[in-house]
């Protein structure tokens, strides 16, 4: 089966979810682009968008339309060439409308898993639940005569566990998009012990067509991205505990969040990132990873406790941030959740006091001005030199944090999760939009 034939019939499981909808979008566009090639005239391309809720599927169709419009506007120069024979389409807006229709026309929303029984390949982006994934994969595999390939978006479950559990005989690969898939350039590709070569080859070709940056990772729970992220969280929580002698828990959360953003020149602070991903998702990823990590406890009682209190984070369907550990107004952090009193405490109540305790911050470049800047070393090197000599409490915590992040990165390589330092850095640079890789020599 050729690349194009394989993509003629595809299903996305969990298509209405945050990751699933992005995967759906990218795949729909890729399939429609194939269908519009002159050689494929007359061939049908079918993409089942499968999820449990009709309401959510209706929402995802609206999301698709809005996103395809943006994509079409960006590539209208190319689209005019594709539709050159359609003499009835003259203006850009007519071309764009036709393209939106042609992409949407590939997609079939459905709440029935049976729709996947005809597909050549299945993208899976359902809940991080190993047993559920195994159950669904084996059900499809048993009922689908086409021996479909499974592309799982799991960010933490070893692929071999799914492969062997569902009896797929290597017809599976980890294809881990970053959130949101339509924008994030990174894909972690993880082979199970048995993944067939042709599945891997297809995965690489598909990633290339989507213009993604592929980083291969070994099949060890959490892979590179969450391997770093989860340990980064645990370290941040540790730092919060250390500060409790000197400040309240909300103050400490605020302080560590601030340091991990401003002092570390990251796009967002660690607790905001947890909210962005979802407290529930983070907690669950740890739960999944933990049994596979020897000599190490990947588990945060604080996150579990917050989750137990209903602090979840995550995003609204239109993409804005829900309140989590932090409370947001128009994207800005305005309060921190206090697990002792079950209430948000406004940042304004303690901000100046905590900032004073952290001390004068060495002048740092804004993340925005560093990321994507070709000469970023010219900004970062002098900054880290200032950070090295600064004597404030905040600077000390920041230095330790940077060193810890490097240690985590190094550990991912030495424990065989990542093949090399560069791959770890690529994941943090592209998948997490960091301005610099964790494995660096800024503080050496």
């Amino acid at each position: 089966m050729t690349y194009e034939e394989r993509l003629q019939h595809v299903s996305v499981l969990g298509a209405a979810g945050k990751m699933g909808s992005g995967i759906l979008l990218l795949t729909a566009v890729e399939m429609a682009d194939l269908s519009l090639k002159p050689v494929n005239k007359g061939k049908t391309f079918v993409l089942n968008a499968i999820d449990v809720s009709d309401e959510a599927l209706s929402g995802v169709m609206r999301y698709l339309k809005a996103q395809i419009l943006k994509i079409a506007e960006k590539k209208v120069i190319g689209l005019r060439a594709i539709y050159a024979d359609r003499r009835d389409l003259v203006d850009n807006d007519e071309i764009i409308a036709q393209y939106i229709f042609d992409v949407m026309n590939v997609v079939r929303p459905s709440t029935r898993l049976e729709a996947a029984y005809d597909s050549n390949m299945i993208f899976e982006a359902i809940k991080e639940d190993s047993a559920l994934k195994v159950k669904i994969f084996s059900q499809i595999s048993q009922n689908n005569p086409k021996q479909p390939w499974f592309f799982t978006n799991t960010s933490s479950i070893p692929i071999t566990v799914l492969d062997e559990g569902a009896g797929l005989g290597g017809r599976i690969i980890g294809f881990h998009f970053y959130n949101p898939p339509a924008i994030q350039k990174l894909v972690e590709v993880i082979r199970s012990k048995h993944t067939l070569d042709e599945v891997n080859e297809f995965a690489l070709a598909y990633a290339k067509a989507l213009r993604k940056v592929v980083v291969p990772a070994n099949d060890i729970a959490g892979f590179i991205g969450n391997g770093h992220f989860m340990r980064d969280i645990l370290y941040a929580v540790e730092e919060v505990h250390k500060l409790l002698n000197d400040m309240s828990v909300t103050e400490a959360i605020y302080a560590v969040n601030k340091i991990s953003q401003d002092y570390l020149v990251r796009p967002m602070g660690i607790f905001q990132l947890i909210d962005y991903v979802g407290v529930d998702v983070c907690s669950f990823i740890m739960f999944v990873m933990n049994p596979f990590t020897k000599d190490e406890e990947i588990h945060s009682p604080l996150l579990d406790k917050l989750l137990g209190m209903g602090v979840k984070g995550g995003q609204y369907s239109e993409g804005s941030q829900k309140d989590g550990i932090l409370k947001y107004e128009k994207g800005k952090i305005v309060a921190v959740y206090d697990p002792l009193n079950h209430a948000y405490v406004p940042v304004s109540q303690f901000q100046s006091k905590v900032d004073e305790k952290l001390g004068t911050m060495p002048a740092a470049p804004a993340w925005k001005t560093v990321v994507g800047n070709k000469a970023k070393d010219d900004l970062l090197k002098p900054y880290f030199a200032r950070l090295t000599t600064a004597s404030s409490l905040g600077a000390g915590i920041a230095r330790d944090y940077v060193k810890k992040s490097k240690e985590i990165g190094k550990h991912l390589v030495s424990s065989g999760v990542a093949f090399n330092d560069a791959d770890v850095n690529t994941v943090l640079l592209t998948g997490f939009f960091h301005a610099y890789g964790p494995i660096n020599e800024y503080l050496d």
Partner: protein
Amino acid sequence: MVAGYNTISMGSGRKEFSPKRERPGLEDYIKEAGQGTLKQIGGAQNVDECVIGNFMASRFNRQANLAAFFPFIDEGLRYKPATRVEGACGTGGLALMNGIKSVLAETAEVVLVIGFEVQNTVKAIYCADFLAPAGWAANRKDGHAYFFPGQFSERAGAYFEKFGRETTRKGFARWYRNAIENARLCPTAQEYHNTIKDLEAAAMVEPNAKAFLENLTALDCSKVSDGASAIAIMSEEGLKRCGIPVTDAVEVVGYGQVAEDITKPPPDKTALTTMRQAVSNALEFAGINIGQVATAEIHDCFTVAGIMAVEALGLAEHGKGPEYVIAGNTARDGKFPINTTGGLIGWGHPTGGTGVHMAVTLLEQLKGKAGAAQVNIPDDRPYGLMANMGGDDKTLVAIVVRK
């Protein structure tokens, strides 16, 4: 011509502009410009006739029947004769011509002329659709997504081939620099807030055909603008009626109005032959040569059009426009300052308003009222020239005015 008024040319580049925020509508622009001129001529009761120039409000703003906006500007304009004219980007020039001819025909002593366009209602990619009818509709289907920029990119390509790419691109870059430097001196200019340090280096970045055009970059193009300009065209009788001394006005001493077949490709892609004809008619009408002109406002919708216009004016030989510009001749301190408030690239290009804006700028320069943007107008060269172009060198108006 007297009593000019320009609104701000609003669009990307202005600090106060945000595509997401709600913006003034076309009626606000028309009203501001119209009232700006009426205030200087003693009010609406002095006006005999009104002309409004606009290219494509029917699509940008879903609005036609624009002549009926005059009574909205001022109730005193109710029941006065009013006309809307259209000639694509040359609309403003046609509006002026209508006013001039009414005065010459003695059917009016005072004509209020407004030109405007409000284009930021849509993204640039749809703007391209709305502006495409300035060319021959039959060519649209096979044209570039950005239809007009595409046509001028082709012209640039032809010019590169015939006269050399490097020097020509350097000419473009110098043209851009002059435009921005002039715009920075004019508070209503769209590029007034431009802070690029090395303008020529920015303009020398290679074009990217996949993202935009083969031979031009975004800096080679005028931007999407919202703006309106107004001016009054009067006889001496009209000036008296309004109590304006003759010395406050510039005198229209010649014009050239020329049209070329829109269905045909340009006879020479490297030259603006219709503009050359219009300018030559206007100079002949005025009985002067280009050497007597102190400054010009010319239609640089693209840098390449600016370069070719320099040649069409007779300032440089065919193929020598880039060198002439690179040498600084057209800069504000050069021997022939062009587009002294930035032109279409620097001040802005609210399509239907551009011709009127040119006339207002000439009026200000010749009367020493251009503020920080003022250039030297030598006593022995008391003339100003404007050349306003509709479409790809199709509908042309050139006007010569005297101090």
